């Protein structure tokens, strides 16, 4: 059974269908990349799954249970964690407190006290390389560190499904390599990942399957190699030069 499933999922804003009759499934333990041009409905999809938006039609199931229309905190408690494209650090709290919050209120921490949460936060901070900044206020962090914090907070929740919204944006090549390594590491420990990305080499290099969205609909779904050669995908998003480079690398 798929861990996350969407059936006939739609979300309209007035006359605009941001997501339009989408069917998709994420298998347990897989990394599904989501790509598509701007306005394709990728972030809306994440907002629907995480509960920040109710669907206009269709349903979403997590582990067989309907989660569409449920409040975000309930979905988070079930084991869904997400990051935001434009990071949302909690100002007024330190780095450790930000992550401890995830540890306290996520699936893994139901009922956890602050001390246990802070300990777990330290573990996760070490994993993402922010241990030295644990006591710093978030206001002084660099962009890359804020992304690490966003990820650490999500991981501290102990989720079963991790939703990543363009984590690579704004990172330099070395940081991208590091982020890809972290996603692989987390995946190795059993995490299911749905990642929205524009950085092609990252998402193609890490994902097992790729879902291509266009105008809120599914344009293609399959292994990275076949998706990147799909003429419709090349036409809509990747561009002929990318398509040619892929063909040459056969």
């Amino acid at each position, binding site marked *: 059974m798929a861990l996350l499933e969407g059936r006939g999922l739609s979300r309209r804003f007035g006359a605009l269908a941001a997501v339009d009759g989408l069917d998709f499934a994420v298998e347990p333990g897989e990394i599904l990349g989501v790509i598509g041009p701007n306005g394709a409905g990728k972030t809306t999809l994440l907002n629907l799954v995480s509960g920040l938006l109710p669907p206009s039609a269709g349903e979403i199931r997590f582990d067989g249970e309907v989660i569409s229309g449920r409040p975000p905190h309930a979905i988070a408690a079930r084991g869904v964690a997400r990051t935001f494209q434009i990071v949302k650090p909690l100002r*007024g709290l330190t780095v450790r407190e930000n992550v401890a919050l995830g540890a306290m209120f996520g699936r893994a921490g139901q009922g956890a006290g602050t001390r246990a949460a802070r300990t777990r936060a330290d573990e996760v901070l070490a994993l993402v390389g922010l241990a030295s900044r644990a006591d710093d206020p978030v206001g002084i962090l660099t962009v890359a560190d804020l992304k690490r914090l966003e990820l650490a907070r999500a991981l501290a929740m102990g989720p079963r499904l991790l939703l990543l919204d363009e984590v690579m944006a704004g990172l330099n090549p070395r940081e991208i390599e590091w982020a890809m390594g972290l996603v692989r590491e987390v995946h190795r420990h059993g995490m299911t990942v749905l990642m929205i990305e524009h950085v092609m080499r990252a998402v193609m290099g890490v994902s097992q399957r790729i879902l291509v969205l266009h105008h809120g609909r599914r344009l293609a779904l399959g292994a990275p190699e076949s998706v990147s050669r799909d003429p419709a995908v090349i036409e809509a998003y990747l561009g002929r030069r990318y398509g040619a480079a892929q063909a040459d690398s056969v």
Partner: protein
Amino acid sequence: MTRPPGRRAALTGAAAGALVVAALALPWLASGYWVRVLSGVFMFGALAQSLNVIVGFTGYADFGNVVFFGLGAYTTAALMTKAGWAFGPSWVLGGCLAAAAAGLLGLPLLRLRGHYFAIATIGVLEAVREITSNVAFFGGGMGITLPVFAGPPEVFYRTIYYLLLVVLVAFTGLAWWLARSRFGYALRAIKADEEAAAVMGVHTTRYKVLAWALSALCTGLVGGIYAYWLTYIEPPFVFDILISVKYWIMMLLGGAGTVLGPLAGAIILESLSVAIWGQFLRGHMLVLGLVISLVILFMPTGFMDLVRLRFSPAAVVDNLRRNRI
């Protein structure tokens, strides 16, 4: 170059403890004038602390918070006069009623954000004042006269003093608990970014409503003591937005969201009030307003933040630049 946090906390705790001991001893050492002045400081300190729960920690601008003060005052007064209850149970029930009101109102009103919520709370204040003025059970516009304390005046004023000191210490303790408890973490997350808090698993509605009910309980308890102190209350005395403004400024002055800030703000503002009132009999409101403006412009994060930065000029200027309202 910072002292280890444990040691700083211990020093602060020791200082606070010393102040409490001094406060306990004061009525036996100083004149009735000081007992009454300090009672006022304690009352406003307690009010500022209770406001801190919903504003400083949770980030919801409750301008009409004094409505709970009035509800506590009126419930206490009504139960003592109409039902013949003693002060104790009337007082507690007054706080509970205020908390229940916040709980009920919170469900619709806490969906509003920022300025809209602030205006809604003022609307509630005005409405409750009008209702109280027109309902016979609450004495209508004629007010309620509470039973007189059975004992000499100094004992009465001393009792009020200690009651207010107890609630002030209790509410400061509450702020201390909020700063380190799970509940407090949830509130601070809501204040920082409600959407992010929600996707992290925080039941934002439940925590917001609880925070407001807690704030209302505290404010209501202070109101009950006030009614007992004044012995006669009328709607405009206790449903007065200027009281709210005063302890709002105290909270901001001292530092919203800190443990000792609201108390520090109350002490500073009351001291200024007493000092200025003596010097500028006619212009004192103007001078007070000016002082308040200058302080808000140059200490936006409050006095306690200046203390944290040890008043170092460079840090203060940087703090000002980052936090200018």
